[in-house]
């Protein structure tokens, strides 16, 4: 257990000499048949901020889990201060000075700041009781150091998110952290809070703490980085001093070679409007916070529309509201001519709209069931004859679908958990396709699956689109947004920001449009009720509006005018 005084001054010797403190040598991690990390060599330097870049599923989070003792590597060695170590648990990692701050903060909100900082590591008096005085003293010192004037007795639930993060950092410092891993620390912070956080990070590095930092906000992350490390498909593809690199370099390294699929030349003969979203607003049930703000969008038969946006842009909330899981608080959704206001998930699937959810494990799969039973779950009623499931029909349907969506499996009686992520995802998509949908919604359909499977999944979607299926999907990977859509719309902070034609859009344009602080393209001027009269999203900003999105000039002019108004 660390004494308070030691916490504050022990790192003053050669604080930022940049010596390597933690090394990962040939670290590999395999989940089932998925190779999440393929032999990674990685260094963390004292007093420096090492930023990890990479798309979803590139392997960053897996490596962080290994460095922080959450997971054990399948192969390879960690070396701390020149000594090979095996981390048995997160506690073990903390004991050795490695702490992680997860994106989802890990605090007991009903306890005070002081109690949270010392939770599990309480300072004891000689009688074994908790030494509250000492704890309070150290808490105060830590708060002064972190320049957050929070009284130690404040309940965590009364703090802003940014302050809660500071408490997490304080907890890591109290545990004598020399290496601090921060996973998406700014995703819930305001711009001012980000500045404060960066100041804290600089203060820590000046005392010799090594920071490992993961973020999807590339520019922001570059600003704080000393070293930039880029991951792609489970491998570390580049390490460079941040001073030598720019945003373009990071993006190039992240994406690497273009994905080996490209559907930009797909035919564009769309049918009628299949799904019409008109001025939809969604508020969080608990807090009433508006997460989807007045979104209007049409998807036509045979069209694949991609919603690009970062986490927290309201994409998932929009998709779940469309699927019927959460109620919408404004606007309406039409499937063909039918208003779906009073329909539940089951009804919506029955009339032809289903969702492939973002979190496959939590929302997509029934883990205890076989591949076949997962596949047929949504369309079970179609196979019922005289009250019973016609098993032969069910099995035939499933077998056909397994072939059709190309699931690699030992057969439909294999457990769903025996499949790789990509094949599990094909089962989830196949399950919805078995219901003969008119519209399919997909939330991050390629998260955590390898490049080959991504291509196959998009090939499948485009094949179904050619048969008339309307597809609306969400992604945070700019590469696939461009190469695998007919139309691409950037979403940020609950609003649709700007529409692109993927044949002419560039990465920079798209990323800029989705940027946190960049509201240049924001059409937030729309008054309540305004969008309801204007079902189509403005295409005015797109460089080359496609035929189906082009509008009457007058309408466009009106929108241009609206854009000028303050938000």
């Amino acid at each position: 257990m660390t004494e308070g005084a030691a916490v504050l001054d022990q790192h003053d010797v050669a604080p930022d000499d940049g010596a390597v403190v933690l090394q990962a040598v040939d670290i590999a991690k395999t989940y089932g048949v998925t190779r999440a990390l393929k032999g990674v060599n990685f260094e963390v330097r004292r007093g420096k901020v090492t930023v990890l870049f990479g798309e979803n599923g590139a392997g960053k989070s897996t490596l962080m889990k290994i460095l922080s003792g959450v997971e054990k590597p399948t192969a390879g060695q960690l070396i701390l201060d020149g000594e090979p170590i095996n981390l048995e648990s997160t506690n073990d990692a903390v004991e050795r000075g490695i702490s992680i701050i997860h994106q989802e903060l890990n605090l007991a909100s009903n306890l005070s700041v002081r109690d949270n900082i010392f939770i599990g590591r309480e300072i004891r008096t000689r009688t074994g009781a908790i030494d509250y005085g000492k704890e309070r003293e150290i808490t105060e010192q830590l708060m002064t150091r972190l320049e957050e004037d929070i009284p130690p007795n404040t309940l965590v639930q009364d703090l802003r998110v940014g302050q809660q993060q500071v408490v997490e950092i304080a907890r890591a410092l109290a545990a004598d952290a020399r290496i601090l891993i921060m996973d998406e620390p700014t995703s819930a912070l305001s711009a001012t809070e980000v500045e404060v956080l960066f100041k804290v990070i600089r203060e820590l590095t000046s005392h010799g703490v090594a920071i490992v930092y993961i973020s999807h906000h590339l520019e922001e992350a570059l600003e704080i980085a000393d070293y930039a490390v880029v991951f792609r498909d489970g491998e570390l593809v580049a390490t460079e001093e941040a001073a030598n690199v720019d945003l373009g370099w990071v993006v190039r390294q992240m994406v690497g070679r273009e994905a080996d699929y490209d559907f930009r030349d797909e035919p564009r003969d769309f049918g009628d409007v299949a799904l019409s979203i008109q001025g939809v607003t969604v508020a969080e049930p608990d807090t009433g916070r508006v997460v989807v703000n007045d979104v209007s969008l049409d998807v036509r038969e045979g069209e694949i529309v991609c919603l690009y946006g970062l986490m927290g842009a309201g994409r998932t909330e929009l998709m779940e509201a469309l699927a019927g899981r959460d109620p919408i608080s404004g606007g309406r959704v039409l499937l063909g001519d039918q208003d779906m206001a009073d329909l539940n998930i089951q009804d919506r699937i029955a009339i032809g709209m289903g969702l492939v959810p973002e979190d496959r494990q939590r929302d997509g799969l029934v883990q205890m069931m076989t591949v076949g039973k997962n596949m047929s779950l949504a369309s079970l009623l179609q196979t019922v004859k005289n009250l019973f499931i016609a098993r032969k029909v069910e099995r035939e349907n499933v077998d056909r679908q397994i072939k059709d969506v190309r699931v690699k499996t030992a057969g439909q009686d294999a457990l769903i958990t025996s499949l790789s992520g990509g094949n599990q995802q094909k089962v989830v998509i196949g399950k919805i396709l078995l219901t003969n949908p008119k519209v399919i919604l997909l939330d991050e359909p390629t998260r955590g699956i390898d490049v080959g499977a991504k291509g196959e999944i998009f090939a499948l979607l485009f094949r179904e689109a050619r048969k008339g299926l309307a597809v609306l999907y969400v992604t945070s990977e700019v590469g696939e947004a461009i190469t695998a859509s007919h139309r691409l719309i950037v979403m940020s902070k609950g609003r649709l920001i700007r529409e692109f034609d993927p044949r002419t859009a560039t990465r920079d344009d798209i990323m800029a449009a989705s940027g946190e602080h960049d509201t240049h393209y924001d059409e937030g001027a729309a008054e309540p009720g305004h969008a309801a009269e204007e079902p189509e999203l403005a295409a005015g900003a797109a460089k080359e509006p496609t035929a189906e999105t082009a509008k009457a000039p007058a309408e466009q002019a009106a929108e241009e005018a609206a854009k000028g108004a303050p938000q």
Partner: protein
Amino acid sequence: MSTTTTTPAPPAGAPAAEEKKGLGSRFNMNTLLVEGRALIALVIIIAIFAIMSDNYLTAGNLTTITKQVAFNAIVALGMLLVILNGGIDLSVGSIVGFTAAVAGNLFRGVHVPGTDVTMFPSLWVIIVISIAVGMLVGWVNGLLIARLNLAPFIVTLGMLYVARGLTEVLLNGQNITNELRGQEGLNNTGFFEIFASRPLGLPLAAWVMIILAIIFSIVLNRTPFGRWLYATGSNERAAQLSGVPVRSVKTQIYVLSGLCAGIVGILQMANISSATADLGTFYELNAIAAVVIGGAALSGGRGTVRGTIIGAFVIGFLANGLVIVGVSPFWQKVITGAVIILAVAVDQIQQIVQRRRSAAKAVASARAAAASRAASNEPGSNS
């Protein structure tokens, strides 16, 4: 019973290959262990007691056991549905008592308020109404749990008190015994005769158990409702997004649990020839034990009718054997409890071993892959 069962869900972490009876599919050792374990325990119990006492394996004793097992097994079938869903129903014992009390009062006659008329329903009307009351109580459970998202444990714990209290209100401190014989001319006689009958030598309760087991087995394995139940129990969110009506499934299982408890209420009242205030006390615990010994997961999604019936027999044969060989009632409880814990512990240990094995396999294959890469001196990258 349940001859058509394809075991729906081997435990999580088990290797692939669900068994499909015959048809040359792979033999699933794990499923056999989970279900066979209860069966093995049953055989061992019978063997031990048969050796220790000559009275154990007599026709008379077996009939007694079977009847006792049937009461528990029928309640346990309802409990199985609830547990498959990830819920629990603590109110079934009280529903047993309540149903019997309702039936007893119907035998006594219902006084129509404001008149001198007392109605005497006929025998089968009494039985149907009483069981329907059991279902009604279950329906209230289901509504509170499915619509208001209340915790099943709390709702059914509350209902345990409510239904038991109502039982006591109805009986008002007196057992109903003589009225159950009915009166000539009121069309409500013959209750004991029907329920004391033994078609083909088996007690009626055993037949009811067999018929219900077959029906439940078919429902679980052949109907969308059954599939939905397993899906909801394993992953409610995923089931919901697949269009499974999770709320109505949830409501219905508590109704069915009430149905089973109601049937046992009638059967047990006939068995002891009386409606008493403590009828069915602790039945919920025996039923849960049977379901768990039968290999079901309390977290939901895993369990079978066959396992549950075997579980009920394990408890029944054990309890009876302990009495016959003269173990003191105090030690009977200790031993029964230990068996229940043992069953769950073995299940857990099996799963841990399974997980370790598959993890070790993954590590070995990853090492082999790394080694072969190193040997062939590839860069180890596929770009």
